[in-house]
């Protein structure tokens, strides 16, 4: 089991990492910045009444999706979670269709039927978010089994967090994937909380990466606030998978910047620890590694206008037709 201390690695993050090109850094930055802005805008939209239901911001965790998705290819699959906007954006989703979906409009990815908790994007090979915590793990495992049956050269990247790692399907899936050497990467976003329950209270052993070896695969622990670390770990896991060597468990340590969902103030969180994590903002860390500061500004400006456009598009989009909906209900 490879295990790294996140803090230590974070320190060396000042210089551009070997093996990660400026192009990749910028790509990751685009994802992370778009996610950050997307979440902030969605929280506004929620408060303005444009969004209903549950909204789980990915604020503070952006580096994980940005880094991991940059390490796989368009033809590779991801499986997402209830906190899934970052995954969706980083895998290449169209912000217009995303905002529309989260606003429940007919033009959204899921025609307004899914919402934030069920967003998926077929054209990006994003198999979707899930409202059942943990369910994505075996679904992603099965996608990898399907790939093996089809003999296509693809990888599945499964996102989930520490709470999901309490579910039985976590152990079952790791075992299943190891037994069949499936091309799957388990990206455990350890944000230290499942709603208000801290990892220390819900695990008998808080070293989550060590479950990898116990089930027959490498378990790697990285700094989840450092997109480069996540990228490199994912890259080598993807190579392993494509080489038919089987699955990898990656634990990426991070922290939510707020409560569990938009209406949760998260007062139970240790404010000191939170401040420490916020001081290590994944966007800052990534920015510090990018040489072309002008490129950063360009990306930011582009994301902002893209997002504004997306929100306009969504607001102008129609509600789904009730009649069409009623007509579409099948007889089973």
């Amino acid at each position, binding site marked *: 089991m490879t295990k790294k201390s996140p803090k230590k690695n974070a320190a060396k993050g000042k210089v551009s990492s070997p093996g990660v090109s400026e192009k990749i850094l910028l790509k990751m930055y685009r994802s992370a910045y778009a996610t950050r802005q997307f979440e902030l805008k969605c929280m506004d939209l929620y408060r303005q009444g444009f969004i*209903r*239901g*549950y909204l789980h911001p990915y604020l503070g965790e952006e580096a994980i999706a940005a880094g991991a998705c940059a390490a796989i290819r368009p033809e590779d699959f991801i499986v997402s979670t209830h906190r899934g906007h970052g995954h969706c954006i980083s895998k290449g989703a169209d912000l217009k269709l995303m905002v529309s979906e989260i606003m*429940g*409009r007919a033009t959204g990815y*899921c025609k*307004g*039927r*899914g*919402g934030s*908790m*069920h967003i998926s994007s077929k054209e990006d090979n994003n198999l979707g978010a*899930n*409202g*059942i*915590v*943990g369910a994505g793990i075996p679904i992603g495992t099965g996608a990898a089994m399907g790939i093996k049956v089809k003999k296509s050269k693809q990888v599945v990247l499964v996102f989930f967090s520490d*709470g*999901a790692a*309490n*579910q*039985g399907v976590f152990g079952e899936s790791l075992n299943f994937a190891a037994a069949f050497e499936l091309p799957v990467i388990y990206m455990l976003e350890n944000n230290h909380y*499942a*709603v*208000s*329950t801290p990892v220390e*209270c*819900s*695990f008998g052993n808080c070293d989550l990466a060590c479950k990898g070896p116990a089930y027959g695969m490498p378990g790697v622990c990285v700094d989840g606030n450092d997109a480069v670390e996540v990228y490199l770990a994912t890259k080598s896991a993807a190579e392993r998978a494509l080489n038919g060597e089987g699955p990898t468990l990656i634990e990426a340590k991070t922290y939510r910047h707020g409560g569990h969902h938009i209406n949760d103030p998260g007062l*139970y969180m240790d404010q000191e620890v939170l401040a420490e994590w916020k001081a290590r903002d994944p966007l800052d860390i990534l920015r510090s590694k990018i040489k072309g500061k002008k490129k950063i500004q360009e990306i930011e400006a582009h994301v902002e206008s893209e997002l504004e456009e997306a929100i306009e598009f969504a607001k102008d989009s129609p*509600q*789904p037709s*009730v009649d069409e*909906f*009623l007509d579409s*209900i099948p007889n089973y």
Partner: protein
Amino acid sequence: MAEMMYREALNRALFEEMRRDPSVFIMGENIGERGGSYKVTEGLIKEFGPERVIDTPLAEATFTNAAVGAALVGTRPIVEILFVDFTTLPMDALVNQAAKYKFMSGGQGQVPMVLRTQGGAGNGLAAQHSQSLEALFYHIPGLKLVMPSTPYDAYGLLLSAIRDDAPTIFIEHKLLYMTKGEVPEEEYVVPMGEADVKREGEDVTLVTYSYMTLKCLEAAELLEKEGISVEVVDLRTLKPLDEETILESARKTGRVIIVHEACKRGGIGGDIAAMIMENAYDDLDGPVSRVCGLDTPVPYNLELEKVCVPTVEDIAEAVIKIT
């Protein structure tokens, strides 16, 4: 009499029962300091400590099975499953373990546990957080099944459920938590298996339960203005089912509509309709009909969500159609 919210009535029942009986304890996700997503367990951990108010890891199958085991060694566990949609995960604990233990052991052991959960649409929570799945438990012999509609019933039935020696599924409705009603200050129990005629009437019987009781009462109000007298039978307990009260009302009015939010196909409405037909056919003026949820997953969009669930107008229309 104090007016209190449904969720407060439940909270009070938990406090009282945990005080009365040290073998009662509760397990669930974020029910401790956080008091549960719907605040039903608020304050319990302060009085009873983390030994009896247990924030579990996110592992529904295990902590529900754990309740079975704990019940077998002489405690009275209460389990909270945040959404009835998630009871798919501990389904084996309920169907194959809790429901069958007493039977399979020839009566040697019993499983006095309560599974509290919450269902229904109405908050834009989409397909995996809006279901009404009581029919699944209704079909499994060995489980009692309770779905109260008022703070009064919620308190009295939760007391009953905790004291009962059979495993009981206790389903709350997310839109009921903030509704208010009178609750006597002294302790009382609502026995399981007794329906409550929430409104008397002569022309049509509405058989219903949980949140739809409120809709039926609203519809009855409307219909009264049109000169139609509607009786509303709130089942309160689905198992044991109070067939007597249902049949009595059916015989009186001769016209029955079953109203529930759960999908129509395979919902308990069919079962009750068939039961009424089998027992009171000659007293009926027409077929028993059903006003139920549409047979579809619940969509996220609010407008679409609304049409999936019976409205007051749907109910009133159905009544008018048969009178």
